[in-house]
């Protein structure tokens, strides 16, 4: 049963829903074209798997939790949307790895440990064969920055291949299979601005608060900080790693970005780990296994990254090299896991916003065509 399968992704109480529509009423994002969560719940209850995989609604939800607070049946629509997002990630992924990870926490953890150990072995072997553990940078370094640069780019290329393929799969499901009417190509160009806009501002997340009285929505702010920090860091590591690793003098024009990104990452991860422990917001009440792996791994990466930086600048080269190896041991599984895990929503969400805008425009066009040219048979 489809509903039982979704249970493994976290949607436990869908059967309780009796379709009153309270959730759609209170949702700040539900509108004329994209009505959710009730409709998604209904599709789920009816087991319309083929229909659900073409919907964009789960990506339009940012899980403010108002629907779950309001639900008269405790069917938890917010968590259902979250689970549908997990399921969609596994659906967009053609390899099936993601599905395995979401369904079994042990498989995921074992895979991460295996990749981490392999990476560690490779790095130590490389480091010992060409350099000394007491040299951090330059001639005879344990892990020279040119090597790391090449290493990063290789990992990045693998990551990119998977992400692009998955994104194309998503586009096929959503725009070809799930859109029964013609979408003109220029609509894609017209709405292209949506992609960077939603990527860098996450404006819709902030809109989650418009029905409440809070001035600033903390989850949004911290999520934005975390995301921007992560993207900056990714860019620095992929492109500017040689300047970043040079030292021990601080190269301000590069490092300032690194420090800012670290602040965002640290604040974000600590906030989200704390929330998942305290469960004071409804959206943190239920944490799926993958959520914990996500925040914990990110936290380890951030802490080891900062530690190796501090050790390097203070002249403790040996600890710096060791923490660097640990850092890379957590970074590599993290990056390789990215297209198969929750972190893929970095790509899917802005894409979904973009596709939803294109689809809405196309639908409006369709409606106006139908309205203006009545088909006269006789």
């Amino acid at each position: 049963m489809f509903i039982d399968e979704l249970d493994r992704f976290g949607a436990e109480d869908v059967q309780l829903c009796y379709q009153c529509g309270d959730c759609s009423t209170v949702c700040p994002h539900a509108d004329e074209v994209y009505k959710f969560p009730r409709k998604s719940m209904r599709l789920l209850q009816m087991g319309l798997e083929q229909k659900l995989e073409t919907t964009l609604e789960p990506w339009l939800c940012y899980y403010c939790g108002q629907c779950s607070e309001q639900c008269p049946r405790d069917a938890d629509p917010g968590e259902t949307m979250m689970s549908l997002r997990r399921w969609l990630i596994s659906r967009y992924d053609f390899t099936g790895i993601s599905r395995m990870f979401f369904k079994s926490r042990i498989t995921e953890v074992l895979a991460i440990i295996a990749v981490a150990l392999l990476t560690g072995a490779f790095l130590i072997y490389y480091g010992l064969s060409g350099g000394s553990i007491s040299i951090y940078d330059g001639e005879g370094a344990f892990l020279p920055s040119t090597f790391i640069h090449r290493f990063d780019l290789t990992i990045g290329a693998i990551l990119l291949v998977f992400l692009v393929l998955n994104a194309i799969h998503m586009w096929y499901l959503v725009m070809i299979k799930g859109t029964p009417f013609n979408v003109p190509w220029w609509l894609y160009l017209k709405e292209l601005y949506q992609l960077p806009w939603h990527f860098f501002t996450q404006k819709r997340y902030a809109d989650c608060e418009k029905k409440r009285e809070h001035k600033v929505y903390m989850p949004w702010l911290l999520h934005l900080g975390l995301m921007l920090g992560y993207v900056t860091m990714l860019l620095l590591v992929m492109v500017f790693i040689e300047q970043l690793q040079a030292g021990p003098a601080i190269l301000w024009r590069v490092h300032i970005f690194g420090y800012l990104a670290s602040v965002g990452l640290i604040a974000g991860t600590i906030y989200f780990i704390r929330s998942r422990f305290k469960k004071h917001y409804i959206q943190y009440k239920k944490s799926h296994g993958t959520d914990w792996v996500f925040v914990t791994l990110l936290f380890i990466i951030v802490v080891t990254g900062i530690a190796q930086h501090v050790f390097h600048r203070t002249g403790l080269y040996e600890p710096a090299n060791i923490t660097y190896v640990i850092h890379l041991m957590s970074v590599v599984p993290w990056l390789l896991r990215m297209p198969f895990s929750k972190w893929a929503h970095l790509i899917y969400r802005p894409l979904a916003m973009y596709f939803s805008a294109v689809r809405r425009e196309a639908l409006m066009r369709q409606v106006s065509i139908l309205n203006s040219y009545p088909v006269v048979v006789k």
Partner: protein
Amino acid sequence: MRTGVFFCQTGDNRNLNIDAIAKYSANLPDVETVQILRLKPLPDLVFLREQIITHKLGRIVIAGDIPGYYKPVFTRAMAMAGGDTDEIHLASFQEHGAKGENAMDRAKAIVACATMGVPFPLAAIPGGNPVNHATLIIGGGIAGIQSALEIANAGKQVFLVEQTGTIGGHMAMFDKTFPTLDCAACILTPKMVSVGQHEMIRLLTRSKVVAVSGKPGSYRVKIRQSARFVDINACVACNQCAEVCPVRVKSEFDAGISLRKAIYIPFPQAVPNAYLVDEKSCSYILSEGKKCGVCVKKCPKECINLNEKDHITDIEVGNIILATGYELLDVSPIEQYGYGTFPNVLTSIEFERLTNASGTTGGRIVTKTKQFNRKLNKDEWVFSPEGVPPRSVALIHCVGSRNKKYNAYCSRVCCMYSLKFAHLIKEKVPNANVYEFYIDMRAFGKGYEEFAERIKQEGTFVVRGHSASVTMVDGQMAVRGEDIFNDRLVEFKVDIIVLAVGLIPSPGTEELSRMLGIQRDTDGWFSELDYNGSPTDTDRGGIFVAGMCQAPKDIPDTVAQASAVAAGVLGSLTSGKGIGHMSSVTLSEIEARAKTIHTI
């Protein structure tokens, strides 16, 4: 006769230990074999035939929750074995009520009677206690009134205890009844008058039961009658006292939407038709005789005595009928509807009083108007006859009902009265838009579905989809909802919102259940003995339930149950066997009686 007992119990019955009953039945006289068959779906025919032949069985007892289901198999087996097919007896635990505390003893008795071939009801006759022929009815709503009239018309004494100043209950507050749109008062008030004038009914208004003792057939009841401060027999309801009374408080009968004086009559048709003084607001009583007292001087009949004291009455009755009714759930915690914040959000009972012809606006449906209150020195929103009729009204079903946070159960009447409201609005304000937001339309009774269809044809926008959001923008309320059948989100600008509020047991229910030893279900309503078999009895003998206090139900069902209760009471009075209760009959008594019948 050689008897075989076969237990056919599918599924679990938490109260019954089948193995223990089987052991007990093995020791009964003439029992040759006892077997526990746990066979699904049916026991094996050949096996049964062999059993009958090997044990030379002349009689078969099938025991279980639904033994009748297995009877055909046993009949065929018996016929194949050449036995007498009339000697197959059923020991049905479910039918004879083997549940609750005495479930095991009852089940054993059922099996014992069946092995002897004696019908269980013949052997297990409760009773023995002589019955007092007076009956106490607690609650003077339509249920209490109906029961009282049925019993009193049969010539038996009835004490009708009512907590407020008049009988009539909630039904007196209603304008029309669904689905026939009959005038509620036209049905109720003749009955009220009959109660007031009946020689066999003693009406005790403003009274409360404070203590009950005794056993089935003779209960001693202590009733505390609060002072009315007005002589019922002398008062002619001339209204002169109320004209001079300076105190104004919210009227309970008008659900708080209008004001009354401290000396008042709840409504003109009240029974007993006499004024009363509200001791909680009368300034004479509150100041202990230092202030006011103008009504005493004004009264032409000199029937007001503001120094009257409460007094206690002791009565003895044989049967007690509970008809304590219900009240509305407090909606103010359900914040999303803005009740208490937005002036024109009304509960169902408030709207009922607004649309009632005897209400504060004379039956005109209007929005609230702002009025300056000099005493509190601020603006207040009140209903006045000069109010403006609404351009659109939203009716929201299931407010607090079918909701795990408030009432998990369905309140059963809300769908129908909301439809009735829609009709009344269309009738009185023809060009108003009416929007009904519902989850499931529960129109379950005779003529109800047709009524719902009729309302839809009258131009009401019936939206399948609940609303959980009421907002106010520039003094204009807006209701947001999802129209599921038409697949769109809707937002309607409305002037009045009526909430179909869920029902809860009346506040005295818990105290009364403790006093009488009656159980309540998880939702707080009184528990009946058996929902299907005996919906009016309780687990104590001589105590019955009628109307809403058992579970939410509409007026026809309430009246039907009230009459059924009267039949139960009159049955106990006229049977001559005395009153008792099944739970009071012990296993040994039943066995002994069964043996006596068996030997005959």
